[in-house]
């Protein structure tokens, strides 16, 4: 079954605007929620991550908002730039010792137009 639902599938934002990508999950046993960024021809790279004991984490123009009761978390990109154009994946990690796997969302292709 699909453990994480990511939306939208694609997003076009004007330069300077706010990009918002959402993820919803079903299992409450997840304990780590990263976002990965992938540029064309490259592998994904960790952008920002959050644990469920905080509701928000900000790094520069990138913010994760986490709503534990709603089982949702989202990525906000403030002042979006053409260089932010990439595919973004949310992911989840199952809690517990010895857990190494991440489950990824299907991805959102972001295009920031000048």
């Amino acid at each position, binding site marked *: 079954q699909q453990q994480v639902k990511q939306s939208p599938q694609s997003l076009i934002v004007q330069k300077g605007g706010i990009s918002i990508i959402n993820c919803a999950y079903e299992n409450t046993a997840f304990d780590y929620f990263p976002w990965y960024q992938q540029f064309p021809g490259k592998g994904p790279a960790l952008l920002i991550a959050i644990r469920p004991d905080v509701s928000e984490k900000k790094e520069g123009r990138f913010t994760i908002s986490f709503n534990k009761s709603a089982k949702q978390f989202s990525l906000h990109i403030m002042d979006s730039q053409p260089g932010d154009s990439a595919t973004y994946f949310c992911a989840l*990690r199952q809690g517990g010792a010895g857990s190494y*796997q991440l489950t990824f969302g299907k991805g959102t292709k972001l295009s920031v137009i000048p």
Partner: protein
Amino acid sequence: DVKVTQSSRYLVKRTGEKVFLECVQDMDHENMFWYRQDPGLGLRLIYFSYDVKMKEKGDIPEGYSVSREKKERFSLILESASTNQTSMYLCASSLLGNNIQYFGAGTRLSVL
């Protein structure tokens, strides 16, 4: 600097061929992963390994096997390639106890 190297960027194989995809990491990471990436399906885990000679099935292991004889090297094997295995294959590694996965640039495999 962290580095995960996949031996080929592009590979074209025939149906029924045995295919080896190689991945090497230079970070002394314990964990290594193989994913396939398809449009609209995201990244799906095929196999992972948390130690030399150890392997665990991921979400879509059918038609694949893996080998990890040395800590730095993790190979994905398609015993008899089929057209539905045409995809982008991504290798990743992580340190034991650390959640951050580092990815290679990927191998785009076409099976004709």
